[in-house]
């Protein structure tokens, strides 16, 4: 018999990974009594794989989380051991930040923050089933025999649901190396009518630091300027640790090829689909036989830890084969494996069954976030957790959910993709997924999202004041660029900027348009610019220099706005619409898009079908069917 806990929570979050932590913090900070349940209190916000946060598109997500008032950027900054800004020369919108974090320190900091949150209770407990009533979710039951009541539940199950770990041809139940899987919950979801699928991911071995000959490896150091992720930390001092680069060779590949019969992937033992962008080393060797070498970055897992993470070397070959092939690499001849690499299969719930708010379509008040939605990556998980937490709290408050558009944030792109595209593999964010990439930059995440975060109640006064100050600098700077002019008579300035013969004066803005001029050169010419922070200056420069491109993207946004703003009533019966093909009817009926814009992005839905649909919609509105 289950025992009631006696306390009813407004929001219950199941799982304390990257999604769960953000969800719980957001809900609690928005004033909801919140419970965060985890199978083990010792592994909060654990980085199961790569000990780093950010990178291309992921760094963008972290900035967005931060702008909305989330925690990930702050935690990554606080526990960083190396900082790099990637792609500095490839364009303003694709510059991306990445930090190596101290894995244990990250987990510890997040736990401390959670424990300090007033409205938030952190408890150990493994959820095995959900209680669902006529009005939606009612609460969760734990393996330990407790019932926690709550009208909003956020599931963030990671790789734990029915997790199966593969090392060579051996496999056993587990949610992460050394931790048990969560059994029962996915069966319960299936019973509730959810379509549950199976995905696969993998991780490399962890190597012992003192067994590696670093003198024979190339060193990679961090940037000298450490900017960090959070808007609240602009630039800070950091004692950075280096990473190292090692390479596989023909012998490594030979060992791997000779042992493919022991690979669960190549012998068909693994059924789940793995990510294409994160292939195991055996995958790389098989798929790219012409390559004579593959690179790996050896990343320290922390300041005190001896474990070294070899990126790009995930494997599910047996441990003895792993040892053999790692040892075939220069610098790793004597390497000791501390934990073997493995592959893991886990259950996920097809994300077309959630709305863009992350609430499930089937059960009111039940939200899914993170890997349960078929995504991969800490940043993708955290972003969903934050939105789920916000929207669960909004539901408690009787407010409409926070929805982000594709033109507003990578988070919007991700949620739109998840709810319209079929899941073929774990979903990871790439900048190329956004059609409005120029609008979604790291540098303007604050401008895009801070006020939304403020509206929902997650942006602190401190952040808000700082944001307003920066906005003021920006606007004053903008006016200065437009109104301040360099007259032809200012010969020294004209010569210094190499402006050539000026017949008439130029505004600073016109000068800045020239490709060879940077905004730093103009700072001495305007007092307003001297008062600007480096971040505001960067934004001013981007706004002027790339105005044409940015304007064109805004025009594209406008062009599809009418589709995006046309809601599709949930009561619409697609089967009744003549002129739609059977396939389109079925896809629409399955996905139940929320807007015409979303419908247009569903695979197989043609422009003609959208035309038919919009005509039908006009008629439907006039004489709504019952």
């Amino acid at each position: 018999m289950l025992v009631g806990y006696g306390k009813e929570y407004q929001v219950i979050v199941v799982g304390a990974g990257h999604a769960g932590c953000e969800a719980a913090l957001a809900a609690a900070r928005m004033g909801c009594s919140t419970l965060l349940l985890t199978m083990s209190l010792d592994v909060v916000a654990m980085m199961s794989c790569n000990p780093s946060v950010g990178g291309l598109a992921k760094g963008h997500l972290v900035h967005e989380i931060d702008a909305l008032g989330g925690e990930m950027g702050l935690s990554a900054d606080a526990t960083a051991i190396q900082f790099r800004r990637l792609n500095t020369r490839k364009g303003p919108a694709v510059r991306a930040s990445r930090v190596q974090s101290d894995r244990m320190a990250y987990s510890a900091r997040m736990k401390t923050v959670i424990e300090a949150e007033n409205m938030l209770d952190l408890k150990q407990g493994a959820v095995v089933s959900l209680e669902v009533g006529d009005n939606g979710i009612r609460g969760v039951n734990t393996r330990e025999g407790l019932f926690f009541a709550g009208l909003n539940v956020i599931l963030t199950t990671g790789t734990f649901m029915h997790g199966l770990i593969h090392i060579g041809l051996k496999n056993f139940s587990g949610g992460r190396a050394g931790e048990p899987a969560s059994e029962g919950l996915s069966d319960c979801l299936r019973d509730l009518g959810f379509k549950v699928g199976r995905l696969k991911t993998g991780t490399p071995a962890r190597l012992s630091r003192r067994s590696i000959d670093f003198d024979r490896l190339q060193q990679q150091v961090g940037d000298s300027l450490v900017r960090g992720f959070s808007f609240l930390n602009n630039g800070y001092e950091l004692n950075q640790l280096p990473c190292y680069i090692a390479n596989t060779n023909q012998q490594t590949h030979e060992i791997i090829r000779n042992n493919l019969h022991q690979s669960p992937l190549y012998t068909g033992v693994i059924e789940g689909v793995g990510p294409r962008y994160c292939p195991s080393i055996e995958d790389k060797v098989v798929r790219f036989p012409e390559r004579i070498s593959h690179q790996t970055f050896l990343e320290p897992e922390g300041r005190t830890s001896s474990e070294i993470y070899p990126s790009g070397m995930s494997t599910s070959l047996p441990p003895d084969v792993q040892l053999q092939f790692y040892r075939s690499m220069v610098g790793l001849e004597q390497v000791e494996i501390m934990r073997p690499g493995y592959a893991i299969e886990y259950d996920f719930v097809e994300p077309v069954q959630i709305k863009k708010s992350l609430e499930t379509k089937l059960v009111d008040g039940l939200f899914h976030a993170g890997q349960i939605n078929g995504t991969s990556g800490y940043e993708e998980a955290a972003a969903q957790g934050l939105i789920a937490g916000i929207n669960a709290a909004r539901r408690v408050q009787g407010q409409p959910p926070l929805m982000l558009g594709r033109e507003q944030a990578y988070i919007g792109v991700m949620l739109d993709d998840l709810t319209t595209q079929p899941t073929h593999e774990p979903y990871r964010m790439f900048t190329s997924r956004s059609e409005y990439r120029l609008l979604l930059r790291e540098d303007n995440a604050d401008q895009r999202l801070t006020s939304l975060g403020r509206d929902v109640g997650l942006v602190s006064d401190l952040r808000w004041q700082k944001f307003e100050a920066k906005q003021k600098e920006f606007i004053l700077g903008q006016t200065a660029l437009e109104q301040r002019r360099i007259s032809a008579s200012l010969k020294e300035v004209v010569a210094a900027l190499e402006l050539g013969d000026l017949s008439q004066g130029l505004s600073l803005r016109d000068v800045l348009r020239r490709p060879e001029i940077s905004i730093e050169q103009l700072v001495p010419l305007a007092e307003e610019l001297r008062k600007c922070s480096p971040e505001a200056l960067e934004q001013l420069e981007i706004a002027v220099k790339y105005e044409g491109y940015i304007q064109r993207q805004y025009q594209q946004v406008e062009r599809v706005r009418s589709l995006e703003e046309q809601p599709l009533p949930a009561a619409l019966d697609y089967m009744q619409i003549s002129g739609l093909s059977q396939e389109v009817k079925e896809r629409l009926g399955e996905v139940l898009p929320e807007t015409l814009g979303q419908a247009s992005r569903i695979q197989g839905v043609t422009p003609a079908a959208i035309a038919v649909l919009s005509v039908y919609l006009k008629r439907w509105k006039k004489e709504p069917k019952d």
Partner: protein
Amino acid sequence: MYMAGPHSFTAEDVVEIHCHGGQHNVSLVLRTLIQAGARLAQPGEFSYRAFLNGRIDLSQAEAIADLIHARSEKSHSLALSQLEGQLSQSLYLNKKLIRDALCLIEAWIDFPEEELPQEDLFKIRRSVDEVLVILNKMVSSYNTGRLYSEGASLLLLGKPNVGKSSLMNALLGENRAIVTDIPGTTRDLLEEGLVINGLPVRLVDTAGISESSDPIEKEGVVRARNRIISSDLILLLIDGSKPVDEEDLAALEICYSSKYIIVSTKADLDPQIDIPHSFKNNLCRVSSKTGEGLDSLRQLIQSTLVADSSFGENSVLLTSQRHQSTANSAIKCLIRFVDALDNGLSLEFLATDLRDALSALGEITGETTTDDVLEDIFSRFCIGK
């Protein structure tokens, strides 16, 4: 014959009734069906349904529409080749070149720490140039393509009683316009359609160009002058049995801004050898009476209209206005790409221009999704950390 959807042409369930020949039998079957509640299809309704049901894409649907309206065999085969996707195929090849370039750039952007091919913008520039050449050629082919699918309009011009109506009748092979010896009989524009060497042509007979005081004829002259602007080719007729006069010179003056052929008529009468030099260009002697010179006139008409002979039987001609403007907007994006490259703009902007070009071309052949590009990246390069 029952064809179950979605494997029929329209992707709907279709029943075809095959009956013995003869209009009578067909009418009987139709009448029975209509009495039972069926209705006749509207023109193009089957293609429309096939399009709505996603069975055919837009460019195929348009080719079917062209096919229905095809006026000659040549334009019939043009419509057919487009239907079979020659246009789509050629565009697909260009799209593939752009997509390959985009794939590299996106890979350089999204995977800065992977071991990718070196950033070689020069190579990308070359393949974009290649696409530009092809697209430009396609756009300029639009005029030729349009001639085949819409037909060329051919204006007969010349002073009164020079033999315009006779020539028209000779080309048509039957009496259409009224021929008399009284100048100015053809008061109005008389349009006739015929096929000249595979090219559908509308012959437009006009009242002669002369300063007449007759108000009816004056109106006809104004219209003829207006028609010059909108016709593809002018046949300027001069009377081969008389010396060239001021009026002929005035008429030639009008032609200079267009494509024209000078037709010296009445070759069966005493030929006037004294033809001024300015009239010898593109000259053809014919006799409407005997048929002399008509074949070489036909030849000349075709070769003058289809000036660019590089469009052989198998080349792709753009035949619709929509395709032309789409190709034009793709060209605009690619030119922007080349400019951006020359101005040293970073990869991200180059990618934006290529994406825009792809989405422009996608209006003819269907969208390229970001997932397609990612798919390319993952299949071409070894990505993965």
